[in-house]
């Protein structure tokens, strides 16, 4: 069926003469190269952001101020959040999109390869600027990744200008990546690959890309207003000049809430590929999965103010946002039920991608439960800005998004490298991560319910035991990720030769090309039945 371009290796590739050394990576327009760079970049950022989390957990290991002063602590929480959101999770998904979307739809490459190169290569500069700001006089951004005005305007240090500039670059990169995904999917599908035949990973990314294009400019607007408020005398967020600090939060969360779905929809796609593969059974309710994803994306524009219930909104607005937020649990529930129905009466095996996917479903659902609790406005007044919220979004982002990225990495590593990864090491990584992530984040629910606010460098003695447990879980989770680093390096360097389709139940065009995938795939489009 497919026209695999022979056993073509880089050295017989006569279409372009591939440059070697650093220029190969600097000038590459190949979706696989760019995908790899995105993935490595995001993993490096994951470790950088993770080490900041280690600083946070070390300081919180016991009550009192031990290691860092509160101002530096605030820089750590802020930059940890920014790096994990914009540097780790989002580029990882873009990397997966680069690698997999062309192969999944039978396209030779992304539609806009030069823009693809550029959208990656501006990212290291964005994060270099952000990280450099930590070494400025006055320190880096210390106002939380949500940079609420006026803390981020009148009351911030001068590194704010660098923060704004780096967020602009990240936003431009994301928008270009999203445009590329949309253009590729709309124009480059192989003959016969109708929309409703696309793998769910392609579908979820397609919808995610629209969300990105819709909201990244809103973020750009927010940071620009912060910039002009701070340096050019405007008063968008300053009541003294006719502005409103709460308006900042409306603008930020109008970006911020779709943003959280940007970080989870591609996960849904990944898990929807892996669960059927290892259950050896087709995905249950494909079309309802597509509609549920679209419904979640649509609703994500109507719920932003649930992050702001305590800002003093009219009752009517509080009710509206509460109802819309509760409603989101319906399509999300449909997805979970479909995954369970896919497993039901399947023939299940438990290779590492499946283990991470199963952990994703369970732990993401727990995060969904706490999300549902947070939706109830009267109770949210108690939960808001406590560790309960911290527990909630780490369940959906770490054991949700990050676990799905891990699952994807294990699932497609044989295709990327041509080698099977070390299954024993992978299982060790999985179990170490699974246990430590729960020791890390589960007790945070209790700390929050008992009244511990988030973003504090020191706490009252009643929270000492919980924080000690959490910190131990944090260190263990951090160390566990080094196993993954070791495993990937080992897999890139060698290992058992991987067949074209290493997973018995896997489906999709990517498995019709050899492993490792040739530098150029589908020069002639495959025929999709």
């Amino acid at each position, binding site marked *: 069926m497919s026209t695999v371009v022979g056993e073509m290796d880089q050295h017989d590739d006569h279409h372009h003469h591939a440059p070697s050394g650093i220029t190969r990576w600097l000038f590459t327009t190949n979706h696989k190269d760019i995908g790899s760079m995105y993935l490595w970049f995001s993993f490096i950022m994951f470790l950088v952001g993770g080490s900041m989390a280690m600083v946070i957990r070390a300081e919180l290991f016991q*009550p*009192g*101020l*031990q290691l860092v*002063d*509160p101002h530096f602590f*605030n820089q750590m929480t802020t930059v940890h959040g920014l790096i994990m959101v914009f540097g780790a999770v989002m580029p990882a998904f873009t990397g997966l999109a680069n690698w997999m979307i062309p192969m999944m739809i039978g396209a030779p490459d992304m539609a806009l390869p030069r823009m693809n190169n550029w959208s990656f290569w501006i990212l290291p500069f964005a994060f270099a600027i952000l990280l450099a700001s930590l070494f400025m*006089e006055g320190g880096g951004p210390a*106002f*939380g990744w949500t940079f*609420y005005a006026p*803390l981020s305007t009148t*009351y911030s*240090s001068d590194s704010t200008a660098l923060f704004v500039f780096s967020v602009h670059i990240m936003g431009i990169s994301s928008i270009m990546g999203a445009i590329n995904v949309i253009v590729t999917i709309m124009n480059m599908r192989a003959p016969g690959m109708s929309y409703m035949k696309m793998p769910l990973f392609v579908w979820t990314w397609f919808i995610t890309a629209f969300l990105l294009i819709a909201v990244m400019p809103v973020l750009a607007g927010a940071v620009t207003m912060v910039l002009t408020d701070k340096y050019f005398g405007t008063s968008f967020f300053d*009541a*003294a000049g006719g502005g*409103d*600090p709460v308006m900042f939060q409306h603008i930020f969360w109008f970006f911020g809430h779709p943003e959280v779905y940007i970080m989870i929809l591609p996960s849904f796609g990944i898990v929807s590929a892996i669960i059927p593969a290892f259950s*050896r*059974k*087709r*995905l*249950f*309710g494909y079309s309802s999965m597509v509609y549920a994803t679209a419904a979640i994306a649509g609703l994500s524009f109507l719920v932003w103010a649930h992050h702001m219930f*305590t*800002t*003093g909104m009219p*009752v009517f607005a*509080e*009710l509206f946002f*509460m109802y819309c937020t*509760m409603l989101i*649990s319906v399509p999300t*529930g*449909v997805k979970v*039920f479909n995954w*369970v129905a896919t497993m*039901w*009466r399947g*023939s299940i*095996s438990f290779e590492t991608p499946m283990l991470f996917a*199963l952990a994703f479903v369970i732990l993401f*659902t727990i995060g969904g439960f706490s999300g549902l*609790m947070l939706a*109830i406005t*009267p*109770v949210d*007044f*108690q939960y*808001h*800005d406590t560790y309960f919220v911290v527990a909630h979004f780490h369940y959906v982002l770490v054991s949700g998004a990050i676990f799905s990225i891990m699952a994807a990495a294990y699932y497609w590593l044989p295709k990327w490298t041509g080698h099977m990864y070390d299954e024993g090491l992978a299982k060790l990584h999985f179990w170490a991560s699974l246990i430590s992530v729960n020791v890390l984040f589960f007790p945070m629910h209790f700390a929050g*319910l008992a*009244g511990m*606010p*988030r*973003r*504090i460098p020191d*706490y*009252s003695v*009643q929270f000492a035991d919980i924080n000690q447990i959490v910190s131990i879980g944090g260190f263990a989770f951090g160390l566990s990720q080094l196993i993954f680093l070791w495993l990937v390096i080992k897999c890139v360097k060698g290992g058992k030769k991987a067949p074209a389709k290493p997973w018995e139940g896997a489906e999709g065009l990517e498995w019709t090309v050899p492993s490792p995938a040739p530098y150029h795939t589908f020069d002639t489009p495959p025929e999709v039945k």
Partner: protein
Amino acid sequence: MSIRLITALAAMTPIAAQAQSQLNLTQGVTEISQRVYDLHMTIFYICCVIGVVVFGAMFWSMIRHRKSKGRKPATFHENIKVEILWTIIPFLILIGMAIPATSTLIAMEDTSEADVTVLVTGSQWKWHYKYFDSDVEYFSLLATPRQQIENRLEKGENYLLEVDRPLVIPTDRKVRFLITSDDVIHSWWVPDFAVKKDANPGFINETWTQVDEPGIYRGQCAELCGKDHGFMPVVVIAKTPAEYDAWLAEQEEIQRKAKEEEQRLLAMSMDMDELMDLGEQVYLGSCAACHQASGEGIPGVFPALKGSPMALNDMNGHIDIVVNGKTGTSMQAFGNQLSLRELAAVITYERNAWGNDTGETVQASDVNAFMNE
């Protein structure tokens, strides 16, 4: 209704009773906080039930439908009826949840017909309380000693949850809080009242409570407000109405006397040692959070006072900035926070500590003259 039943069952289980001591949400001391707690438990148990069903089905599949048991996969992959069913059922559960949540929310937002009104103003990093219909107003600062925070002394029972002057409110009366801020956004939170409301600069938010039990209730600032966000607790004492009235009258008297005393003291001048002693106390309480005990500030954020040209040469500018603050920065106006004596002492201290050694004293009368210019 079934939700009521679940809540009732929940209340009877020993785990719930045990957990609420320190791992669960507080039931609080108001009717509202109790309703909030009930809502919390209801939704929690609903989540548990859904969790048992969903995870149960998952684990059943994982255990029974595994390849290693020689299972052959079924081939079904679609069923419209099932899809509709698991869309409708959660929807109905949500409606069941939304009804009690809506009525509680409406009750929480009804600030009408309050008996007592208190204006709560947040600033970096303290709360200010002003009673309407009386002259009483004061700041409420963290009372935990620095030594405890820096691990040089054993931490007390209410570490970081104690203030020098708590807010006092009457029991059995509807108390309305008007909440605002002087600088960044803060959030005034007392878990036992289920009250958390943001303090937005330039805007006033409203909330209320009615406490039934006299007692001491502790909370914290809940919105990141800068460096010492973790160090601005809220403490509220609820007294019976009679005790409250007596307390308020007493405070009015004290504040009136203090003003008189201040005017009387204007004529007196303090010597350098007295000024420096008092000045150091005031400095550590009000200034050191930003400018640091060493007077060196934090470069790029909070300017150093040690060796600063203003502290060495410009006395009028120095008095001005302490009294009026500097707009557009974190530097607050201390003119209404400190007494004339304290202002004089702290300015003297800043001009003579850490090797600034100007040898100049500032007297209360100097500050008073400046303020009346």
